[in-house]
């Protein structure tokens, strides 16, 4: 049975999980339901228009833990897809407030902390390379000065984006923590 999956190409930064959740809900209302997520993007199956709420968890270890899945499924959630530690959960929206998978601030802080860990870890090799690799800063090693500028530009650009992501997540965690009772 072959199925034609629709790819909706929209780029999200790692810290834009709330935007992704809203986007997926909007698409479900148009009849597009998430079938698969991979590094190349989000793929959808055409179906009936439905109000479905999506919630994203970032949890690398949990993906392989049957207890994690069973707990969510028992609570009425369906796993729409997983990708590099991201778990895409969905549940039909009923009457009343949208269903949540995190119901207290401590667990939201924990999720952001995991995501922060990923971004920092992913960026360490890049930063270390920039800092200690003399070859990068030696124009003689590159075929042209422009090649060097592009390479350095990309690496520095990546470091800056990661720094922004880290700052954004720290701010989010601080807001969450600040609102928590002592």
């Amino acid at each position: 049975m072959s199925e034609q999956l629709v790819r909706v190409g929209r780029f999200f930064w790692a810290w834009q999980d709330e935007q992704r959740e809203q986007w997926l809900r909007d698409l479900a209302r148009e009849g597009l339901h998430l079938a698969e997520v991979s590094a190349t993007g989000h793929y959808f199956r055409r179906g009936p228009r439905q109000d479905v709420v999506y919630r994203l968890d970032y949890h690398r270890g949990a993906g392989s833990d049957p207890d994690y899945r069973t707990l969510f499924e028992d609570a009425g959630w369906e796993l729409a897809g997983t990708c590099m530690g991201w778990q895409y959960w969905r549940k039909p929206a009923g009457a009343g407030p949208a269903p949540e998978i995190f119901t207290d601030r401590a667990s939201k802080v924990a999720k952001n902390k995991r995501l922060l860990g990923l971004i920092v870890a992913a960026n360490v090799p890049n930063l270390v390379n920039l800092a200690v690799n003399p070859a990068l800063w030696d124009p003689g090693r590159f075929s042209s000065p422009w090649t060097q500028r592009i390479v350095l530009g990309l690496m520095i650009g990546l470091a800056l984006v990661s720094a922004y992501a880290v700052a954004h997540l720290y701010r989010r965690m601080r807001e969450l923590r600040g609102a928590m009772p002592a």
Partner: protein
Amino acid sequence: MQTEQFLPLSETTFYVLLALDEPLHGYAVMQKVEVMSRGAVTIGPGTLYGAFATLEKQALIAKLGEQERRKIYGLTELGRAVLVAQLGRLELMLRSGRDFLQQHSGAAA
């Protein structure tokens, strides 16, 4: 036993420990908390999964077995002691608060 270091419990932690007075698996805890709190408190699966992991690491709960791919948890002796200590503290706070309200308003608190 050192119960002091675990207090005060968050709302989620309090209700999870309370529910695990009898051995239960994850979703059963979720349902029991909603019943115990008369619908006022709902624990989401993401939150509950994290709570189980933390409480187990803190040795307040322990895995007692498994049933159809669902782990069953129960209170440890330390967990029960912490729960009792928290309840005692809450009771004292409630009593102090009610005394205060009665003195200052004259009407029933």
